[in-house]
């Protein structure tokens, strides 16, 4: 019996050894691998093709190195979650990854990103990056942890056919919120089956509700979400309530879509794929990347978008300085803090962001260039008819307060807009709910009344 037992034990031991042999050994002998994680969806393949090209380029230049591309198929929210989960453990953390600018600070706090300062000094191309865009990759300690791929702005996109049919003079440039309401009412009167002026709201569209909607309103009232100097969150502001009232007016007068439709997470697909091309929508607030959906090869290709569509800056409440409001986000590439090959990973990052690849990405995904040489390239300037309009907004644009509390605050704002457009709360009630929520999230001592 003892013999049998010892046999079993040795069998188990042997299988453990075999299993251990199967796990990848440390790549000491020439064959090195870099893992690259990024987002890819059916309507966003620009980054995938850039990485495919960069992989070929990089592998040819570095013999024995394999670049393992790991596209993550998910929307922005889910991509962020999956990436954070992968970054939590060194065994799953990618060496190079695609990182949203508003997550950079909290992910640096989490220790996920490598400091790139010393390496960037040795990279000649770094001087070609726009100084403002470089800020997006900086953390609270002043060091740079991520390199920007591109940025974006937000503006009003409107359909000229709808506006002409309503007898509105073109080009349209609203100077105040009242102007927007007047125009929308005119469209409603002349074409009852057209949605005159939509603004995203509610939790369904997530970050889109606030980036392409509420913040354009809020920052046009002179108020803001976060007080940068005191590092406190603003509560009880009149601007917040007024912005909610504007949304309430839009939705109550049916100038926007019905609330049930506004809460559908897929509403943006209808905006780009159905309503604008079929002249069923007058105007909406959307990102500078809108042409990426309509241009040749985009997911809602529409050859006539250049003629039918036009862009106008979103006005401040009463037309006060600076006269326009825009929000910016954008994405970066970063190197994992725990990477075993920091040099190779950084070199791959520079390959993926060289002038050629940056230009290809910027054009294919209708980004605003962050490299001066790309911005000066005729291929970029003629990429779509709206490059000049949307790039001009960089001078007035704002960024989100990218602290670790931000995702929760953003959700509270989305909740406030949802309560107002569905009519379950008045703007004053929803604003009070928001104030209470903010105090609950960050603590009463980190809020300020303005």
């Amino acid at each position, binding site marked *: *019996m*003892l013999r049998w*037992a010892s046999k*079993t034990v040795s069998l188990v031991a042997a299988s453990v050894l075999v299993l251990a042999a199967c796990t990848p050994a440390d790549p000491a002998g020439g064959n090195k691998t870099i893992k690259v994680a990024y987002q890819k969806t059916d309507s966003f393949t620009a980054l995938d093709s850039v990485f495919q090209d960069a992989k070929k380029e990089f592998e040819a230049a570095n013999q024995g190195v394999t670049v393992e591309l790991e596209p993550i198929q998910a929307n922005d*929210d889910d991509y962020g*979650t999956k990436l*954070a*989960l992968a970054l*939590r453990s060194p065994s799953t953390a990618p060496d190079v990854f695609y990182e949203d600018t508003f*997550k950079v600070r*909290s*992910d640096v*706090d*989490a*220790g*996920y990103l490598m400091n790139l300062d010393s390496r960037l000094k040795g990279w000649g191309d770094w001087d070609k990056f726009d100084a403002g865009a470089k800020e997006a990759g900086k953390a609270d300690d002043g060091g740079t942890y991520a390199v920007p791929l591109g940025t974006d702005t937000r503006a009003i996109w409107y359909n000229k056919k709808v506006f002409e049919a309503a007898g509105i003079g073109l080009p349209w440039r609203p100077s105040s919120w009242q102007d927007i309401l007047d125009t929308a009412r005119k469209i409603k009167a002349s074409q009852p089956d057209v949605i005159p002026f939509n603004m995203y709201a*509610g*939790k*369904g569209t997530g970050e889109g509700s606030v980036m392409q909607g509420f913040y354009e309103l809020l920052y046009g009232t002179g108020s803001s979400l976060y007080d940068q100097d005191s590092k406190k969150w603003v509560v009880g502001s009149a601007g917040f309530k007024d912005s909610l009232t504007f949304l309430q007016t839009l939705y109550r007068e049916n100038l926007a879509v019905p*609330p*049930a*439709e506004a*809460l*559908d*997470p897929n509403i943006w697909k209808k905006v780009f794929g159905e309503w604008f091309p079929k002249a069923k929508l007058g105007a909406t607030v959307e990102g500078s990347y809108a042409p990426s959906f309509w241009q040749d090869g985009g997911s809602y290709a529409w050859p006539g978008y250049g003629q039918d569509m036009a862009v106008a800056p979103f006005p401040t409440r009463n037309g006060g300085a600076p006269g326009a409001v825009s929000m910016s986000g954008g994405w970066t590439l970063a190197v994992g803090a725990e990477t075993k090959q920091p040099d190779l990973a950084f070199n791959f990052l520079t390959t993926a962001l060289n002038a050629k690849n940056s230009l290809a990405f910027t054009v294919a995904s209708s980004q605003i260039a962050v490299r001066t040489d790309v911005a000066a390239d005729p291929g970029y300037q003629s990429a779509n008819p709206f490059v000049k309009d949307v790039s001009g907004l960089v001078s007035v644009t704002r960024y989100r307060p990218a602290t*670790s509390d931000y*995702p*929760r605050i953003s*959700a509270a704002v989305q*909740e406030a807009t*949802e*309560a107002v457009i*569905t009519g*379950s709360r008045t703007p004053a009630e929803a604003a009070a709910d928001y104030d209470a929520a903010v105090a609950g999230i960050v603590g009463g001592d980190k809020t300020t009344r303005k």
Partner: protein
Amino acid sequence: MPANHRTWHVLRYLPVMPAVVLLLVFLAGPVLWAFQASLTNAGLTGRHVRNPEWVGLDNYQRLLQDPVFPLSLALTVLFVAGSAIVGQNVLGLALAVLMRRARPAVSATVGTVVVAAWVLPEIVAAFAAYAFFSRDGTLNQLLGRLGLAETDWLYTVPMAAVVLANVWRGTAFSMLVYRAALNGVPAELTEAAQMDGAGAWQRLAFITLPVIRGSIATNLMLVTLQTLAVFTLIWVMTAGGPSNGSTTLPVLAYQEAFKFGDIGYGTAVATVLILIGAVFGAAYLRLLREQRP
């Protein structure tokens, strides 16, 4: 030979060791980890990732003050009671009883249709239910053809929609359990009752149900625990909305842990869910034990 004897003693447990080890690693492990994480401020991002701090019962205190928590708890109870205890359980029993009386062809067809929904992977079933209830979905098209007004089902009555979807998806399990149980009811018992003049309802109430009550308790326990954990179906259909109108505890836990990156708080919600499941499980197990004569 005491040494040999002891070895024999240990060896007797060898066949169950893999199962015990698997249970410890994959069941007890995550439960303990979740409980431990719920006492910290661990996060998905931010400075607490590197140094999660022990916060004691703070997360549970926060949970008690969170206005969404009582709502979520009530919705979970509604979801479990509506779709599992009443919906799947009663409908499954009714189908099983009726199928014994129906013609073989009818019974086979009904059985196939009901089981088909159960065979579908959860994500596929969820999308099918979404396509049925959504604004441009099948239900509204059918209603439109009948000349009735269209409704945004997932927006106006989100809980009813997810409860119905879960009944549709899960009834097959109860039906199969009860079909097997009904086959075990001795025919002479039913016949004797019939001789004594008991009607169909009386036979069901006084003969069939008491005989199969063990199966009823087992089935109730299984469907309750399964339904308590349903996440994909609700997430795909409504994502917990509108205005948290269908945020059951699993959806709340997911939102807190992964959308807001607050793993400590999310696991606190999950721990409460485990406790509720344990209470249900214990109650049903007691019910089962008491039946033994």
